[in-house]
């Protein structure tokens, strides 16, 4: 049953996923708590044309992806601080524009259409040492940032109007959170691709949010869940010969659905039993 995990490329994929689980557990919780799920998805999608551009022009893909994701995160972050509606609409428009630009660049400018699928949905079983190093570096940076800035992210999100009176006048912690969202999106790209980044960055944290009521326990539960979902996803993918990124996303989605249903039913059952 555990035979797939004896294959070197599966082991490398597993290491990558365990590192990304740390990222999902720490950064993912802040993304969910601060309502950044859609911008996170957008940042990952925005990285796509950056990757195509890097591929076509011959520079590091992570750099191109990060540049584009960062640009997107800042644009959305700035718009998010403004009042009024239309913020989500604009995020969606930029997201579509990013995907369309990527496709046009890939098919008509650089003629690299063959790699589009792996850029959009990841290629977990073809992961290389640089991908693992990037995931490890981003996981460490996120852990350190959570340790140092977690209280500020929490306080600002809890009551933004009171944050300045509590000594949080600098916009730097929130800006750094956006940079981390962009970094996190880029780190997940090689594993699950631009379109499925939220399967790691948002879905596990959203799942455990239903059953946790403190930040530290929530983050630990999310790390454990993301690691379990990733491991199960790889195993299914190898056994069923299915694309790993999509398989992990399906597993994560199914677990979320089960937990959400259980969460909705438990109070009713308890009430009926009482």
């Amino acid at each position, binding site marked *: 049953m555990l035979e797939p995990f004896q294959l070197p490329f599966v082991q490398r994929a597993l290491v990558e996923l365990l590192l990304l689980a740390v990222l999902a557990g720490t950064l993912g919780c802040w993304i969910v708590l601060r309502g950044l799920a859609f911008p996170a998805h957008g940042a990952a999608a925005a990285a796509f044309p950056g990757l195509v551009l890097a591929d076509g022009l011959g520079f590091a893909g992570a750099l191109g992806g990060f540049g584009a994701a960062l640009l997107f995160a800042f644009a959305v972050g700035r718009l998010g601080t*403004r009042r*009024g509606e239309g913020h989500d609409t604009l995020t969606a428009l930029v997201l579509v524009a990013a995907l369309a630009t990527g496709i046009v660049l890939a098919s008509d400018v650089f003629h690299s259409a063959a790699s589009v699928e792996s850029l959009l949905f990841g290629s977990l079983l073809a992961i290389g040492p640089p991908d693992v190093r990037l995931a490890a570096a981003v996981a460490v940076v996120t852990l350190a940032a959570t340790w140092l800035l977690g*209280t500020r992210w929490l306080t600002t*999100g809890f*009551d933004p109007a009171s944050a*300045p*009176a509590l000594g949080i006048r600098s916009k730097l*912690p929130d800006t750094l959170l956006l940079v981390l969202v962009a970094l996190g999106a880029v780190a997940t790209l090689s594993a699950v691709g631009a379109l499925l980044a939220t399967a790691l960055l948002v879905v596990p944290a959203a799942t455990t*949010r239903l059953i946790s*009521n403190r930040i530290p326990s929530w983050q630990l539960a999310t790390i454990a869940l993301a690691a379990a979902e990733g491991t199960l996803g790889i195993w299914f993918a190898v056994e069923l010969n299915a694309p790993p990124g999509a398989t992990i996303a399906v597993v994560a989605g199914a677990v979320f659905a089960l937990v959400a249903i259980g969460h909705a039913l438990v109070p009713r059952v308890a009430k009926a039993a009482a």
Partner: protein
Amino acid sequence: MSSLVAARDVAVGYGSAPVLRDVTFTANPGERIAVLGPNGGGKTTLFRALLQELRPSQGTLTTTGRCASVPQTERSRLDFPVSALDVALMGTIPGRAWWRRPTRTDRAAARDALKRVDLADRAERTYGELSGGQRQRVLIARALVQNAQVLLLDEPFTGLDTTSAALLEELLRELAQEGRAVMIATHDLEQARRWDRVLCVNGRQIAFGVPAETLTHDVLAQTYGAAIVTLPGEDPAAPHHAILPPHHHHHDDVPPH
């Protein structure tokens, strides 16, 4: 007795035109001061100036001792995964370098503050699950953790039942008695009459003084304008009895960003 807040001819606002002007008052240790005014009249702007978030465009505003705000509880996220202790701990942020995490001393201070507001046994409870009155007291604890000498409360009695309101009023009396100045934005005239001073604002300061002398029909008419309802009184010395209609509790004097 030296005052904790002294304002002289203060004008303050967000852009070129002040939202509030002609503000001259003092807040002394031990005083509870009702801040009366219509929504949009400048109460929040005054508090933001006291918190040094806004600089007066005119006049002088001196504060000795730290001012801390106690906002309305609905303004905070009730769905956040935080305990009462976590919220009280937020009050330790101003005293700490940004790279430092809360220390054991910080936690002890937060617990002490929760004890001071009679919530020692609720420290580990989730903030959003507490009652409105308890949440308000947690936010007061957060202000006490900051060693605030001046407490600025924004309509703290809104939505509280009679028992919680009585508990809160007693707590505010004690906090003032311990040497703090407590400024309370409110629409409740009867409550304001029980406190030490009233400050009436409506774009400018209308009046400041002890309630019995200050809360005249004229002052209230200027403060609340057309929103005031008057009933004929039997007392010839006070021929009109002023009644204020219920207010919404929006912060409409904060302009859009």
